[in-house]
């Protein structure tokens, strides 16, 4: 049990906070799998796998509703305060970001369905490889962010946020390359559009992952970092 959730005189409260944390981690595990599978479908051109990602989004939505229900009950029954309040608020905000990561996985999968439609030629490898390299970074970053949420590791969260600009730089570089050179290198315009959409979705996943780490800092340190607020 985490020190953040244990130690209440009313012990059921410990369990409720712990269960909420587990529910969010479970949801995190599912959206991570969604993003991984969406990226794998892009790498392999597996339209069936992309379709499975789209269908599985219902499960993400169900977990969002379940977590929200738990959070509302916690507010109503326990009136959390101090660190407990920050913990519940952090997890509540995390639920929203996780659900949106799930939506981005669906967007990636939808683009994969269009890119690898049976009646179309396979997209040019040069740009695909660039996007995939970035996708691997994003998957790894999301995994790291979820581990930070799991451990409530504020120091790791600070390191994560400090390194976020490197990922942003890569996005901009790859995007520029596709936009500027896509046509010159003979790629199909709609391929470029779909790859840009995937790139945007990956960028948003990365942004949501950063948000998750900001909520950890809010819980542990009581500092609000959103929108660069002080």
């Amino acid at each position, binding site marked *: 049990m985490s020190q953040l959730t244990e*130690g*209440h*005189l*009313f012990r059921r*409260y410990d369990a409720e906070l712990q269960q909420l944390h587990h529910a969010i981690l479970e949801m995190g595990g599912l959206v991570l799998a969604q993003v991984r599978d969406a990226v794998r479908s892009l790498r392999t051109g597996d339209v069936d796998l992309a379709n499975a990602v789209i269908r599985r989004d219902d499960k993400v939505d169900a977990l969002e509703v379940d977590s929200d229900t738990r959070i509302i009950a916690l507010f109503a029954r326990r*009136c*959390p*305060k*101090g*660190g*407990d*309040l*920050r913990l519940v608020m952090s997890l509540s905000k995390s639920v929203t970001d996780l659900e949106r990561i799930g939506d981005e996985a669906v967007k990636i999968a939808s683009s994969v369905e269009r890119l690898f439609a049976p009646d179309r030629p396979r997209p040019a490898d040069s740009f695909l490889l660039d996007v995939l390299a970035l996708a691997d970074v994003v998957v790894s970053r999301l995994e790291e962010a979820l581990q930070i949420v799991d451990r409530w590791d504020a120091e790791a969260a*600070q*390191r994560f*946020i*400090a390194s976020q*600009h490197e990922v*942003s*730089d890569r996005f901009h570089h790859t995007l520029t390359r596709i936009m500027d050179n896509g046509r010159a290198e003979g790629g199909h315009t709609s391929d470029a559009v779909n790859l840009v959409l995937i790139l945007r979705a990956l960028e948003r996943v990365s942004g949501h992952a950063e948000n998750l780490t900001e909520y950890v*800092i809010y819980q542990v*340190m*009581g*500092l*609000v*970092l959103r929108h*660069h*607020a*002080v």
Partner: protein
Amino acid sequence: MNTIAETKTIHGRESARMRIPEKAAAITVQQREYGRTVGDITSPNPRIVCRDVNVYYGEKHAIQNVSLDIGRNEVIALIGPSGCGKSTFLRCLNRMNDTIIGCRVTGTILLDGQDIYQDGLDVVPLRAQVGMVFQKPNPFPKSIYENVAYGPRIHGLADTKAEMEEIVETSLRRAGLWDEVKDSLDQPGTSLSGGQQQRLCIARTIAVNPEVILMDEPCSALDPIATAKIEQLIDELRELYTIAIVTHSMQQAARVSQRTAYFHLGRLIEVGETAQVFTNPRHPLTEDYITGRFG
């Protein structure tokens, strides 16, 4: 030193070394300095100024070096576990502890700049200036009218019957009770419900023109509806008076007060804006208490 937020704001595309936030570092220091009050004890516009207040019950050191300002037109909530000294501190503010044999108070308590413990001070007018509402409603065994009129009469605040009637009506109106009792002013105060009795006691306190109202768990014997009415009343009275309330209900403290002071074993551990204390307390003892971990 940059805070993490500032660092994040400025990092832009450049690499930035994240630093331990000042606040987090300060908390670490404060955790080591047990016994020193965390937070700003001062008020920009104080009605009451307490410095190094100590209270002894015989050998027992019940309040230890408490310093705290209470601002004009503010509600300050004093919270903490049973026996922490919050009620003892409250009772120092109008010298109610004088009635306890063996009780000794040291330090300074100023009301509008005047030392309330100075030699020769008459405590009767002091207790009109600093009125008190107790846990259990305690109306006099008299009519509703007489409960309110008693104080102004002994303090000579009304020269005529009409003046007294005006004081009674105004006090009952301010206490939110007038509409409920205006047709039964001759009925015994004890015939009212618990919540009405408590509002009658507040009207009785108001009737002698206090500057400060001390409330010692004023809602602990009341149901939620009566409690809500008293809390609404506290919020309205804040415009006219300074209010210090001792409460075991953290929800109540969060609802009615602008500042909250947390007491523990006779010490003032932390004081701060109520929203800050209940979302981001700076002392681990406060955190343990408000989250229900204190054992």
